[in-house]
């Protein structure tokens, strides 16, 4: 079986003859000759010279390049937490629907590079005569032109989240403790509840049955 390398090499260059077979290169001690071309002998025993050695100060991939360039802060900032997907999260104060692809309304930045606008090199203020071209008709804009004032809907979850945060600042107790307390409360409240239930029943009988769906808990709370 011929290795594929030998097949590929055939016809290009004759395969190197083993030196030991010629007998010319054998050293006087009888040991095999060094694996070096003649030009390199006496200079360096191996073709790698001392000049070619990579210095310890050279920057390679073996060092953490993020640390080397002091980018840890940036790495932690962007990779440590989730970055919000939408452009409006990056530019929250920019009016209009900026999350839509620019290709939809031909407002893409790429088109600005590919087809730069035809304009002069300087900006000159508009004269009175020029401003006459900007006289507008009175009245509101048609619906399709009001896109600029439409803001992306802001998530209500944020507020809810904040509220929920503010509502439960107390650290959660261990489930066993809280359950125990609840059970205790239940036991304590039992005679009271019975009384209240009785009262409620009486009231229900007195009032017209307009709100039959009201839960017992709500009712009991209103009584309190």
């Amino acid at each position, binding site marked *: 079986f011929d290795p594929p390398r030998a097949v590929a090499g055939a016809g290009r260059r004759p395969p190197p003859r083993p030196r030991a077979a010629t007998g010319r290169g054998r050293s006087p001690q009888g*040991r*095999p000759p*060094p694996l070096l071309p003649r030009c390199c002998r006496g200079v*360096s*025993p*191996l073709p*790698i010279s*001392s000049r070619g*050695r990579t210095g310890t100060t050279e920057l*390679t*991939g*073996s060092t*953490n*390049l*993020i640390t080397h360039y002091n*980018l840890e802060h*940036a*790495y932690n900032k*962007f*990779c440590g937490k989730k*970055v*919000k*997907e*939408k*452009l*409006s*999260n*990056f530019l929250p*104060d*920019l*009016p209009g629907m*900026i*999350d*839509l*692809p*620019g*290709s939809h309304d031909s407002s*893409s*930045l*790429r088109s600005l*590079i590919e087809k730069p606008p035809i304009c002069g090199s*300087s*900006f*000159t*203020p*508009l004269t009175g005569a020029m*401003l006459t071209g*900007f*006289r*507008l*008709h*009175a*009245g*509101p*804009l048609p619906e399709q032109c*009001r896109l*600029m*004032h439409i803001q992306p809907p802001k998530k209500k979850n944020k507020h809810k989240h904040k509220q929920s945060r503010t509502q439960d600042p107390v650290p959660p107790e261990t489930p066993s403790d809280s359950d125990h307390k609840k059970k205790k409360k239940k036991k304590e409240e039992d005679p009271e509840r019975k009384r209240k239930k009785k009262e409620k029943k009486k009231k229900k009988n007195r009032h017209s049955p307009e709100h039959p769906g009201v839960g017992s808990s709500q009712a009991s709370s209103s009584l309190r």
Partner: protein
Amino acid sequence: MAEKFDSLEEHLEKFVENIRQLGIIVSDFQPSSQTGLNQKLNFMVTGLQDIDKCRQQLHDISVPLEVFEYIDQGRNPQLYTKECLERALAKNEQVKGKIDTMKKFKSLLIQELTKVFPEDMAKYKAIRGEDPPP
């Protein structure tokens, strides 16, 4: 570095605000607001002049084109930074792995060569010096 962008940011914010006010005037135009509109239009021109002046300070700043793609798709450009950093770290680790493997290979090769060619390797080590262990 950041100071360079401050004036540009300020001018851009003013410009955007002016455009927003212009939009409000135009959305329900009244003949009495024509002078206000003219003022806003000229303010827009001066705003563009101010932004154009900022070019001199920022001529050495280059922005990767990929960032524009993110913005054009309505995506947060910080995601590009994030992906760049992640890619850099992954590549860094990959290259480090290769370097470490090559170092191990080198030490093993030297070890084996020393067994077969002790004198040559002694000369080699004399020239190259002792390599630190991988």
